[in-house]
């Protein structure tokens, strides 16, 4: 059984197919700079490969707001699981946490995202499917 698993791992390592081909987040984002936004308002979603980008306006204490871009995963899996662009639309209020870009810009690697209906992406069971709507 152990050898079987090793074979699989070797295949993944050696294969031309980029099985888990997302880029190295650690090169972009800083583990020492966590961010969390409790009331981020979605302004635009770029449903692109290799990673979707969720643009949000984050309200600040002084009443102004700040624009942030949050990196998410490939949309293809979401789409095949029943999501459409309606699942995450401008105007929706979401909870996001993640790690900030090393250059201090308003970009972050999304770690957990909670949709208005309470569904959480990124963390949790792989049973998260399409939203109830």
């Amino acid at each position, binding site marked *: *059984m152990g*050898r*079987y*698993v090793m*074979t*699989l791992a*070797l*295949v993944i390592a*050696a*294969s*031309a*197919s*980029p*099985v*888990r*081909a*997302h*880029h*190295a*987040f*650690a*090169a*972009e*984002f*800083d*583990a*020492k700079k*966590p961010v969390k936004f409790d009331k981020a308002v979605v302004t635009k979603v*770029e449903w*692109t*490969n*290799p*990673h*979707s*980008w969720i643009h949000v306006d984050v309200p600040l204490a002084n009443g102004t707001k700040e624009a942030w871009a949050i*990196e998410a*995963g*490939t949309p*293809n*899996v979401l*789409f*095949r*699981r029943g999501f459409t662009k309606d699942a995450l639309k401008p105007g929706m209020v979401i909870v996001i946490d993640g*790690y900030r*870009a*090393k*250059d*201090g*810009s308003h*970009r972050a*690697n*999304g*770690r957990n995202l909670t949709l208005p209906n309470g569904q959480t*992406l*990124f*963390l*949790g*069971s*792989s049973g*998260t499917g399409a939203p109830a709507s």
Partner: protein
Amino acid sequence: MKSAPRFLPIAILVGAVTIVVSAQTSKAPRTSWGAPDLQGIWNTNTFLPLERAAKFGTRPTMTEEEHAQELAGLQERNKRPGRDSRDVAGKPGVGTEKDVARAYNEFWFGDKPTKLSYSTSMVIDPADGRIPAFTPDAAQRIAAKKEFLAALLQGTSGGRPGSISPRRGDPSPDYNLDRINRADGPEDRGGPERCFGNGVPVVMGTGTFGGVMQLVQSTDSVSLYYDIGQGSGFAYVIPITKRPHLPKNIQLYRGDAIGHWEGDTFVADVTNFSDETDFHGARENLHLVMRFKRVDAHTLSVQFTVDDPTTWTKSWTAVQELERADEKTTLVLEPGCHEGNYGLMGMLINTRAAEKAFREGTGPNPATQDNATGGGDN
């Protein structure tokens, strides 16, 4: 009619063969012009490893008992947390490089396979179901590249202990397609991160991450479209033609494909690959022959034979059976990757920023960080 008795046995034999042949192929649909119909949207939800586990020896098929055992093993592995676990060495990993690298969990890699093939491997030749050994030269160049990768990880959380290697200033010993622990320029980030797209042949993965292959066919050509991975899909037209291959000095990422029919099998012969190609270690000298056959209404057999005397000691052949997906409901998505590749830009920008911070004394030396493996899981 005088000759009839002499020819009768032959004619009956021919008649019988016709009946047998038409019975076999009647399961496989045909196009309106009479060719075997290879068309459809194809994917796989059945797990089948590329290479055979040694315990199966030279047996291409498992017994019922073995299948039950392997299936149980597969289900067990499916339950493992994998990327769902954010622990590092048994403790929560918040604030670690690994936590950043594992930002999204198993959900983003699609559903796990629940079916298991009775075949023991995709590789059917050589007899042991495993890819043949590398030639000595190939083994050497691959080992040299692995050593270069290891040198760049030396002294980081993802590599062997030691000081920062002076090789960090060296160029890659090959056309780099790996993810190396450096970001001096785009070439350091390797194929997938630069959105190179999958090469050929495609060994399809299972489920929603494995994606789909759409095949459209005419009397003139077979046009494949792969929608796989994170936008690593591509279009691939195989013309049915007698023209020769392009001159040897013309090197293409997915080679030069020429198609023809051999009975009911569509054969594509592909040469003229480039050093940006990498198929299990084979680069520009790869020679690929793909064979497509419509097995029955629900199954397309895709077989490939590869040879490269500068890489493997002999040729090898693997076969994958793809399952037909419903055309009315199955999504075939756009391949875009390069268009949305902020990630590559981000890696360069932020590495420059990290270098600047180090120069100014406000940040750690980027060379001491693992920006490649993500803590042991890419």
